[in-house]
């Protein structure tokens, strides 16, 4: 298991290959990649992620460990950037490795759902209208509830 918080950009393809290199015989790898979104009616030039480093590391390690136990993952990795990113840049990547596809999908999904609402990052978007903090979405709070036993 690894959890990496970093300011530097990373290449999701290279990360995938490196992750798989030693364990391609495990069967199923699900990866999720989240990018800085911009659309014509909500233009974003840059996204700045502020974070609370020690707590962010601890929280994401906890979600990854929970996912590994719950879905019997062979391995899991999470990379999350902080600092200022341009539109289209990769913010986050989750890699979940398991014997079968459902566990791999569920593992990545679980980590993302918790990370959205319980990992201490705060986004502010800069676009033509200026800079504003991104509000937490109630749909994100609802998404994590599906994992309650």
């Amino acid at each position: 298991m690894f959890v990496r918080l970093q300011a530097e950009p990373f290449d999701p393809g290279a990360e995938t290959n490196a992750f798989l290199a030693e364990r391609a015989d495990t069967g199923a790898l699900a990866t999720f990649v989240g990018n800085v979104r911009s659309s014509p009616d909500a233009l974003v030039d840059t996204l700045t992620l502020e974070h609370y480093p020690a707590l962010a590391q601890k929280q994401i390690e906890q979600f990854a460990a929970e996912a590994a136990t719950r879905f019997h993952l062979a391995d899991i990795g999470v990379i999350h950037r902080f600092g200022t990113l341009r539109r289209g840049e990769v913010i986050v990547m989750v890699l979940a490795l398991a014997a079968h596809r459902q566990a791999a999908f569920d593992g990545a999904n679980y980590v993302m759902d918790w990370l959205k609402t319980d990992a201490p990052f705060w986004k502010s978007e800069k676009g033509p209208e200026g800079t504003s903090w991104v509000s937490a979405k109630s749909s994100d709070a609802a998404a994590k509830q599906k994992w309650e036993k």
Partner: protein
Amino acid sequence: MKILYFAWLRERLNRGEDQFDVPDDIKTVGDLMSWISNNDEAAALAFSDRRLIRVAIDERLVDHDAQIAGAATIAFFPPMTGG
């Protein structure tokens, strides 16, 4: 006791950190928010809607009724927007 502020809380307070000697009768996170607000107009405004305030004591997420005795660092921040 070290207090940390993040995101728009930090902006509204115009600082990311405080160092306080908190009186013994301030028992909970909620008490602490009131105590900070009593001494500081910007804080009173920043803390005015308590539903928007999340808290961590020594790098653990807690509720507003959590006890603060023995805490080294308490962090206040808005709802998180990771991912």
